[in-house]
């Protein structure tokens, strides 16, 4: 019963001077955002939330996570997501909710019942504020992982070196996530280009440890299962040393010192012979 009267009181407070409170709220929030969101936009967003909030209170709920506040949470989700995408700080996002406390404070009469209602309302707004923070953080995390994915895509090109020969120049540190992407991309490229030879060039890879070697081996085996052969090139002297020191066994996988050597090898395996037109001492 008490809870009901509290929410009734709040609905009363919020509706009697609804227009004024809403406008004040918008002003406060728009001010804190430093004009990066237009006043009209803020007003539109907050008016919707305000209406939904009053409706939820009228339904008798005081639990911000309850069913009655579904609409409010949906609106707050949209607001937080937008703020996160537009690059606003967590404070600038949460203030949209918390500013309502300040706005309501002067409207209180000073009665005990008002005070109690205000405290309850404050708790409710805290809950909703935390909710916006959760959505904000989640959105930022999504953004970060989307960017990480884009980076992966960018950093792993698959290039055609010759008819039937593709090359994958790896640059930077290889971790398992990245190797997965490379692997999938290369295998798909084999099909798309109908290439039976692939060269994985690790000239730009600073270090090869057991894990990276394992990933490379798996890629080569997967390619073989599909009917293509891989050559690993760009094994610098110090990398060759680590590989031997770690006791990594590349099995029957062909490794070459340079991409040029690997290309020559791949071409020969696909049945092509290279010859110079001018009589000259061959490199080989």
């Amino acid at each position, binding site marked *: 019963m008490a809870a009901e009267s509290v929410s009734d009181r709040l609905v009363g407070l919020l509706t009697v001077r609804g227009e004024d409170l809403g406008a004040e709220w918008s002003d406060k929030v728009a001010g804190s955002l430093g004009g990066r969101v237009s006043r009209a936009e803020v007003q539109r967003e907050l008016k919707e939330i305000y209406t939904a909030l009053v409706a939820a209170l009228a339904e008798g709920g005081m639990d911000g996570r309850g069913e009655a506040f579904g609409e409010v949470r949906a609106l707050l989700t949209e607001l937080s997501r937008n703020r996160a995408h537009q690059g606003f700080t967590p404070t600038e996002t949460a203030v949209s909710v918390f500013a309502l406390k300040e706005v309501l404070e002067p409207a209180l009469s000073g009665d005990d019942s008002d005070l109690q209602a205000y405290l309850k309302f404050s708790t409710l707004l805290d809950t909703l504020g935390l909710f916006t923070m959760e959505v904000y953080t*989640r959105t930022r995390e999504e953004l970060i992982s989307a960017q990480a994915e884009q980076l992966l895509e960018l950093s792993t090109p698959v290039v055609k070196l010759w008819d039937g020969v593709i090359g994958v120049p790896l640059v930077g540190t290889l971790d398992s*996530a990245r190797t*997965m992407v490379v692997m*999938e991309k290369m295998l798909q490229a084999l099909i798309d280009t109908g290439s039976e030879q692939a060269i994985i060039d690790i000239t730009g890879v600073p270090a090869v440890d057991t894990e990276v070697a394992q990933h490379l081996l798996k890629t080569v085996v997967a390619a073989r299962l599909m009917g293509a052969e891989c050559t690993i090139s760009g094994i610098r002297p110090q990398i060759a040393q680590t590989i031997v020191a770690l006791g990594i066994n590349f099995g029957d996988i062909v490794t070459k010192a340079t991409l040029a050597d690997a290309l020559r090898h791949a071409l020969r395996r696909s049945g092509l012979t290279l010859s110079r037109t001018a009589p000259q001492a061959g490199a080989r």
Partner: protein
Amino acid sequence: MNGASSASQTLEITANAGVVQARQRVRALAQQCRFSLVEQTKLITAASELARNTLIHGGGGTMTGGLVEERGRRGVRLVFDDRGPGIPDVDLALTDGWTSGAGMGLGLSGSKRLVDEFLLETVPGQGTTVTVTKWAR
């Protein structure tokens, strides 16, 4: 999107067709969870191995599958349950190449590598329960 652990469904695996159904059920779950194609393929393959184990070694049983959400991650959890003879030596059964039947001995050890979490509970004479979970990346 679909809230925490959506209602799990149980499937009887008592014949070869059950293994096919298990694959189809798991494919639907993996797609619902928006797995990448490779992750999807890995999970379905693991399910196929485990469902066959349930059928052949467990003398039939059930697969219960559903979506799970934990610490912000979403995934698919599958439970294979049989009332068969159980596995006397779990470590041995999880060794590559070890087989008690006509398979290649990659059923358990192989499917363990295809999922993120793998839990095997077995009581000789009472049955085996294998619970696997794969998280969406």
